[in-house]
């Protein structure tokens, strides 16, 4: 049983990363469109953005911190620290953190370029993590189930 469980834990780790990155890309796309077409303030966009966990937790934390810190960059970073286990690596974290420091600081065309640049940077990571989930995720489940079956046979 524990072998099967550990297999699924490994798989969910890969799944969490894919899910977070997919939602993050959706968020940037929505943000880009809102900035381009409605020019709504960031706080309003964040409040109205509807998504599922783990991104929803991150966005709501960021909105909470905005009222306390008085700085978007600080709130973005603080929310990132709070939601530590997003399943993403150091490089991906840096890209997302840097995006927070430039958000809301310039005109519409600048913001659109920042969004596009960030999307271009993060998309390859999503593709590779999808591939990893496909190969390594399934492999870990099979291996763990196999090992646990082997151990149970040996014990019997």
């Amino acid at each position, binding site marked *: 049983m524990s072998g099967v469980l550990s297999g699924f834990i490994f798989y969910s780790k890969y799944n969490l990363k894919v899910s977070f990155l997919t939602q993050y890309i959706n968020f940037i796309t929505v943000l880009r469109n809102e*900035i381009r077409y409605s*020019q709504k303030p960031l706080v309003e966009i964040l409040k109205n953005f509807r998504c599922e966990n783990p991104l929803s937790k991150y966005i709501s934390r960021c909105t909470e911190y905005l009222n306390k810190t008085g700085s978007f960059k600080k709130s973005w970073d603080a929310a990132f620290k709070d939601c530590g286990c997003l399943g993403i690596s150091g490089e991906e974290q840096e890209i997302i953190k840097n995006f927070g420091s430039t958000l*809301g600081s310039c005109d519409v065309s600048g913001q659109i370029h920042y969004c596009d640049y960030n999307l271009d940077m993060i998309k390859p990571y999503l593709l590779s993590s999808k591939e990893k989930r496909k190969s390594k995720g399934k492999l870990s489940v099979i291996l763990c189930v196999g090992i646990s079956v082997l151990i149970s046979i040996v014990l019997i």
Partner: protein
Amino acid sequence: MAEFNEKKDGFDRVIEFMNSKFKKLLKNLSKEKKDFLQEIRIRAGMPTVIVCSNNSFILDGSESVATPVDIKEIFNLLCGYSVYSFENQIKKGFITIDGGHRIGLCGEYVFSGDKISAVNELTSLNIRIAREFPNCSKDIFEKIKNDFLGALIVGPPCCGKTTIIRDLSRRFSLSEKLKLPKTCIIDERLEIASCHGGKVQFNIGLSDVLSGIPKSAGIMMAVRCMSPNIIICDEIGTSEEAMAVKSALNCGVKIIATIHAFGLDDFLKKPQIVPLVNSGAFEKIIFLDGENFGKIKEIYSMEELYDKNYRNYTFNNVGCSERIHIL
């Protein structure tokens, strides 16, 4: 109307947009200063100055000296961390925040061709606190309501012109004696009605509001779409606006507008008044007393203005239907 009574005072609202250092500094002001506060002038490397209705004061202590970081922080807070949503206003040198408070911006402006493309390194902010004074336009309303054919309100800066036309819009739109005239406000700089989040922030009665639109385009749009009886707008003066005013007049719409001037002498020297006066839209020219808020200094009818033959200006003494010529 309860909603308007519950609204925060202008000072309290503005305080929310300050960084922690300035929040603390301004909260320590005496009640009298808070009540009469009109402007907060924050300059990089210089002590902060507050302008009250009767006097100006330099705030004491090293804490009142703003650093460039303070100015940047306050600016970001004023923009709601979303500079892009104020892009067009910033290019005109100001932003208007929730509550109708206007912030003038000074800094290094970057031009692309003959247009402003960006603002670098802000050096000073002038925060003008908008306040509502119900019934401040009572005298003006009483004078113009009966034979109302359009009015131009003239006064020096900070004498309450915007506050008066806001109150006038409320009075006209709610006047049952005048059969609830359809009143439309062209709020180019979001100061008159200050719409935010789909709600007006001030009591403007039953007026319709076109926000953020240039006055000339807004007047034409209102005439076409809203069939107004009265159009109200602030700080009018360009030739396009005069053309729009004339078109509105031809459609039977009455105009109430304001213009900056320190008195009749100063008013007549302004070149931008020629097309406005020529449009024939303003039956009454109301001069405000700069020292007493909401008080009328002088009222001229167009005929009186023509008759005045003032200094080096020559008028055709032919009545308001004819054009005047200013040499």
